């Protein structure tokens, strides 16, 4: 056999294999489509059936005995669970109980099939009640991250506050994605989660980073003022830069003036990232006592610190005067940072309007000429 014939045969084999592959793909796609359409059709039928049971308590229309095994039935139940209230919701709860839906889903969580387990976890997170608490708690340590997240979500939806400690205690030993989803659940618990999170941060912030940082961010998102004092303590004792930055971020976001004096002490930290965060947080708090700190920060060696300090001065009462002083001052870096902040907050436009109206103050003219010199 010549080389040319060999190449021809090889090409033929490749073409045949390609054709088989494409054919298989088409068949699989068609099968999937049929299955999807069949599921949608069954779901629509279940929705009509469930509607009648939900609207009329004594409805006797039969629901198939094995409906709880059908994902279409579970989907329909979840959809109704999210839109019903009052007696209709009670009717739906009775239907769920009568058909052993939760029992079935709990069983599915032990299935060897990942998809089945995941579907069960998602459904339990949506419709599970108090009877599912133990199962959901156990699955906070599931081997599948998505199932851990769904377990936490379910506990959050049920509002089982003892679960807060369980979720928080896992902050340090889960992946960033799971931690972020756990945090979402804790935010849903609101102020009930404040002290467990605070306790976790206080105990762990000196020997861990990721967990405490996530916990501090969660405290900021919850927005409970009770977290301010503990976060001030964290700020004073933290040895980790990330934890310090997270604490500053949270204190700025909580916006309580009580925190300002402690925050100001961090303004001389040797790490520019911390100094940059301090000035932003002081601006968020609107701390009048921080004017000197912010004005000094305008001359910082770091561009970020100068920029953030100038932006913060724009937000603090009395800060505008300091920005205008800096524009007219000798320090070129401070002057540039102040000018940019004044432009950002609309002072340049206002100065130009005052000039056109013939009522411009000397500092308006200084700002305009400074901007034009930089144009």
């Amino acid at each position: 056999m010549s080389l040319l014939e060999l190449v021809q045969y090889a090409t033929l084999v490749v073409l045949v294999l390609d054709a088989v592959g494409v054919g298989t793909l088409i068949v699989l796609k068609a099968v999937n489509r049929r299955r999807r359409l069949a599921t949608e059709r069954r779901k629509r039928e279940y929705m009509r059936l469930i509607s009648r049971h939900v609207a009329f308590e004594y409805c006797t229309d039969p629901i198939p005995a094995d409906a709880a095994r059908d994902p279409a039935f579970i989907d329909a139940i979840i959809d109704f669970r999210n839109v019903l209230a009052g007696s209709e919701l009670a009717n739906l709860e009775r239907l769920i109980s009568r058909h052993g839906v939760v029992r079935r889903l709990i069983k599915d969580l032990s299935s060897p099939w990942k998809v089945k387990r995941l579907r069960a976890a998602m459904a339990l997170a949506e419709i599970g009640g108090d009877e599912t608490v133990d199962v959901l708690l156990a699955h906070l340590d599931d081997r599948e991250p998505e199932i851990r997240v769904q377990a936490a979500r379910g506990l959050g939806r049920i509002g089982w506050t003892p679960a807060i400690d369980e979720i928080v205690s896992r902050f340090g030993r889960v992946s960033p994605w799971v931690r972020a989803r756990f945090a979402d659940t804790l935010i849903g618990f609101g102020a009930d989660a404040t002290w467990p999170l605070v306790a976790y941060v206080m105990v762990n912030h000196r020997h861990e980073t990721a967990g405490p940082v996530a916990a501090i961010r969660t405290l900021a998102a919850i927005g409970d003022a009770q977290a301010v004092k503990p976060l001030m303590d964290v700020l004073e004792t933290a040895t980790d830069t990330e934890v310090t930055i997270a604490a500053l971020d949270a204190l700025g976001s909580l916006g309580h003036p009580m925190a300002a004096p402690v925050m100001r002490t961090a303004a001389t930290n040797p790490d520019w990232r911390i100094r940059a965060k301090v000035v932003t947080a002081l601006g968020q708090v609107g701390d009048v006592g921080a004017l000197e700190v912010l004005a000094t920060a305008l001359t910082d060696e770091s561009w970020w610190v100068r920029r953030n300090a100038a932006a913060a001065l724009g937000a603090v009462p009395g800060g505008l005067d300091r920005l205008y002083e800096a524009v007219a001052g000798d320090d070129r870096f401070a002057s540039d940072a102040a000018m940019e902040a004044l432009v950002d907050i609309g002072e340049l436009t206002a100065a130009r309007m005052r000039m056109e109206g013939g009522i411009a103050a000397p500092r308006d003219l200084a700002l305009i000429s400074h901007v034009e010199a930089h144009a």
Partner: protein
Amino acid sequence: MARILIADDSETITTLLATALQSSGYEVEVATDGNQAYQMGLESEHDLAILDQLMPGLLGLEVIDRWREAGIETPVIILTGVDDERTAVESLDRGAVDFVRKPFRLPELMARIRQRI
């Protein structure tokens, strides 16, 4: 037999409402978005329309505006989200006869419908 138009992008809600209304003897038509609801309102007469505020296409209040411009005076009940106080008030200002917050209680909605037909 009174005719009611239901417009909501949630199939769950339209199925539930249609089931309850048909069982109570009403004739029901269903639209799944604002544009379809507007068109159905133009094409045939309804004794009442139940419109979701947040739908694909035209919003519930926009459907009312367009109907009124076209001379369609069908009474409308607006379905709004639970926290949407402004829409609830605005819907009355813009000609809706009533509003109901989601998730709603079926007996209450049915009573409001009976009151309007």
